[in-house]
């Protein structure tokens, strides 16, 4: 297992009271927990993954997510069981939508 931590600048988004969970820690899948973060213009991500040595790929995928979504003010925790970058991107967008949709 490898633990990775990233922090990206991201446009501030809605800050609901309740966290959101998306996905399952199954083969080729991952779970993402989105909670309120400390800094409104920053997205903080911690990843625990079964696949070692993919730090630069994670950095690229999360960086792309933080640049294209209003993920500022969130802390995101990920448990990963070998999800592909496409699945990770999809789940991140899904998790953020559920988190921010839950505020309405």
């Amino acid at each position, binding site marked *: 297992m490898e633990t990775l931590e990233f922090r990206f600048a991201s446009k501030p988004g809605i800050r609901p009271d309740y*966290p959101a*969970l998306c996905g399952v820690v199954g083969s080729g899948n991952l779970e993402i927990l989105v909670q309120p973060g400390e800094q409104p213009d920053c997205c903080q991500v911690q990843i625990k993954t079964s696949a070692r040595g993919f730090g630069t790929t994670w950095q690229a995928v999360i960086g792309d997510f933080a640049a294209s979504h209003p993920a500022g003010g969130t802390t995101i925790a990920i448990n990963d069981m070998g999800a592909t970058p496409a699945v990770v991107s999809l789940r991140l967008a899904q998790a953020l939508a559920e988190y921010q949709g839950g505020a309405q």
Partner: protein
Amino acid sequence: MIASLAARHSWFEATARARINGLLDAGSFSEILPPAVSQPSPHLAQLDLPGAFDDGVVIGCGRLAGKAVFVAAQEGQFMGGAVGEIHGAKIVGLLRRAALEKPAAVLFLIDSGGVRLHEANAGLIAISEIMRAVLDARAAGVPVIALVGGSCGAFGGMGIVAKLCSAIIISEEGRLALSGPEVIETVAGVEEFDAKDRALVWRVTGGKHRYLMGDCAMLVDDDIAAFRSGTTAFLAGWTEPAPSVASLRARQRALENRLAAYGALRDGLQVWAALGVAQPESVPMLDRDSLVALKEGLPT
């Protein structure tokens, strides 16, 4: 036909959380120890394996057709729904609370291969504590209903737990047994049981077979709405009986008779013929309603 299939929400394919959302009254579920405050398994972390925030089981309270119920749902996609220390402790805590607060029922959405072997004794103890807690909740008058229709079925220790519940509601896709097919093949050889023969696996452990044998109270379609209406109907007609030695003895006799009648048979097809099914080879292709009608017509 295809349109009706498309309208279904498969129980088999759904996650534990999706099953709960579709099973209970809309918006009534309140999770106990949700992912943000629950704790992943420390044992898996020691083995350098990623855990799940909820350790593979969702517990909480909600309503089914207006009645207060408690729910535990295992996530089969995470480590085969296997029971580790925290996973087990969450279920045990829910069952103990049920014995005190007496909801209308505990709905136990089983989807598990049994003990999480990574956690060794902690997992084994967790399973035995669940068994005790199921019996204590029932002794307190709270029905515990097992719903089995997930991809992992109910095997190993969780097969025993399922049978300790007040009743089992199963789908054709569900499976229920003690040792799983791969375990039997590994221990006793492929001549004893060919785990790759999926049709054989379902003829011996699958929902239709379990229902025909009387192991399950109800057979429902692989549809979350069918599990909901089946569970609601079952609870409406069920009163949890007080435990008694006489009923245990009667059950023991029934099991001895069953072993004598079917113990030497090798395949569900042979068992169904012995049960009085005129065309046992037609059973795997029957839909749910036809199979229920077939069972109701069997000699008892």
